């Protein structure tokens, strides 16, 4: 693991469009009530400390890290549920691929149950499903993993709120100020549009960026459906180091 270090202003990032992201306090999502800072964030350009960031080598990954169908299997049995390949490209705002960056993901099982000691939903646990994995993007910014489709689940927010099927994503990029956590939804799911957490995203076009598309061309025949989910990270303002540093 190491860093790409870019010099001051010319290697800087585009300012984050905070109106595109959810505001801190979103009353429909009640957990924000006591957790949303009330002061505005202090907007400053990134310094060297935020323009650098950790990177991770492909060799740090185990063979099953991106195979949620098998990576938690207790007895060789595969996870229960509709088999999926989820893949996509990590790009920056300049539409340039972000290679060699760590992507982590976690999700509920096919019944909508997380393997977590504080999770109380009555849907059954699958003994062979852990619900987490990771991948590193290739030289063209692509990641992929195998999993089962997560179930929708109820949660204590309003009286009867349900989360649409979703997968949580964490992405690094190459600068600490590019760090992003988001959630992926599934094309065609009517549950998306009634979810208070989805609804924290102000713009409908922003929500549509979170919806993975069914990709019939990349199905694994007689095995798994494919969904494509591209992720866009903040872009750098300069192209000057493109040939010198990978992943600028």
């Amino acid at each position, binding site marked *: 693991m*190491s860093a790409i270090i870019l010099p001051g202003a010319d290697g800087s990032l585009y300012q984050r*469009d905070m109106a595109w992201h959810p505001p801190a306090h979103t009353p429909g999502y009640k957990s*924000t009530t006591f*957790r949303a800072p009330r002061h505005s964030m202090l907007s400053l*350009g990134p310094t060297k*400390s935020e323009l650098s960031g950790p990177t991770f080598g492909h060799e740090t990954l185990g063979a099953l890290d991106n195979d949620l169908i098998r990576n938690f299997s207790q007895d060789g049995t595969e996870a229960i549920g509709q088999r999926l390949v989820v893949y996509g490209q990590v790009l920056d705002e300049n539409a340039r691929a972000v290679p060699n960056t760590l992507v982590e993901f976690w999700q509920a099982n096919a019944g909508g149950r997380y393997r977590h000691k504080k999770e109380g939903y009555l849907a059954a646990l699958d003994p062979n499903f852990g619900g987490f994995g990771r991948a590193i993007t290739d030289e063209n910014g692509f990641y992929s993993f195998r999993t089962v489709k997560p179930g929708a689940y109820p949660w204590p927010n309003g009286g009867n709120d349900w989360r649409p099927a979703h997968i*949580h994503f964490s992405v690094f990029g190459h600068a600490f100020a590019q760090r992003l956590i*988001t959630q992926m939804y599934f094309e065609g799911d009517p549950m998306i549009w009634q979810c208070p957490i989805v609804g924290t995203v102000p713009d409908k076009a922003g929500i549509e960026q979170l919806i993975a598309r069914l990709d019939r061309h990349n199905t694994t025949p007689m095995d798994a459906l494919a969904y494509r989910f591209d992720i866009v990270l903040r872009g750098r303002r300069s192209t000057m180091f493109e040939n010198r540093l990978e992943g600028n």
Partner: protein
Amino acid sequence: MLHPTPILKETPSQTAGPYVHIGMTPNFAELRGVYDDPGATMLSEDTKGERIAIVGRVIDGAGAPVADAVIEIWQADAQGSFAGPAARHSNSAPSFTGWGRQAADGDGVFSFQTIKPGAVEGPDGRPQAPHVSLWIVARGINIGLQTRLYFADEAAANEGDYVLNKIMDKRRRQTLIARREEGPVPRYVLDIHLQGEKETVFFDF
């Protein structure tokens, strides 16, 4: 110099949710045997610099601990350099990774074993005071919160720091300054207040 303008929108942030420990610190969440928790160890025997611990609590606006938080830190080494590109695709970890990740426990408490960083150059060409970058996610946090930790025993450097001086209300600068507690390994203690009278200063870097 002309810059390209952005042609794509950044993917909107969504909360990490209550089960972020599954995905980011699986062993802490008692999901063992798949891989080690990333960022659990920052140091090696060869790491140069003063060993310190960074400890704190994440607290919400009602004074309750934020037990489902994940905290990441990123910092320079003792010489003020970030982990170098030489090790980028290498299997041998650099002697100091600069990056750590810890889960908050049931009391909202987190703890990192690291070294005290050196000074890094600021945008004005002058050294910034030694500092550690922090990033905090949890249920109820819609976009990861960026802040910094500074060191109480660096008062002179803090006084001239580029970022601290951008905080107009001087009293709020104190929300970023960790107090030092002596011990076999000195501890720097800083609580993160998401909201309320002692609300931490968060940055849009």
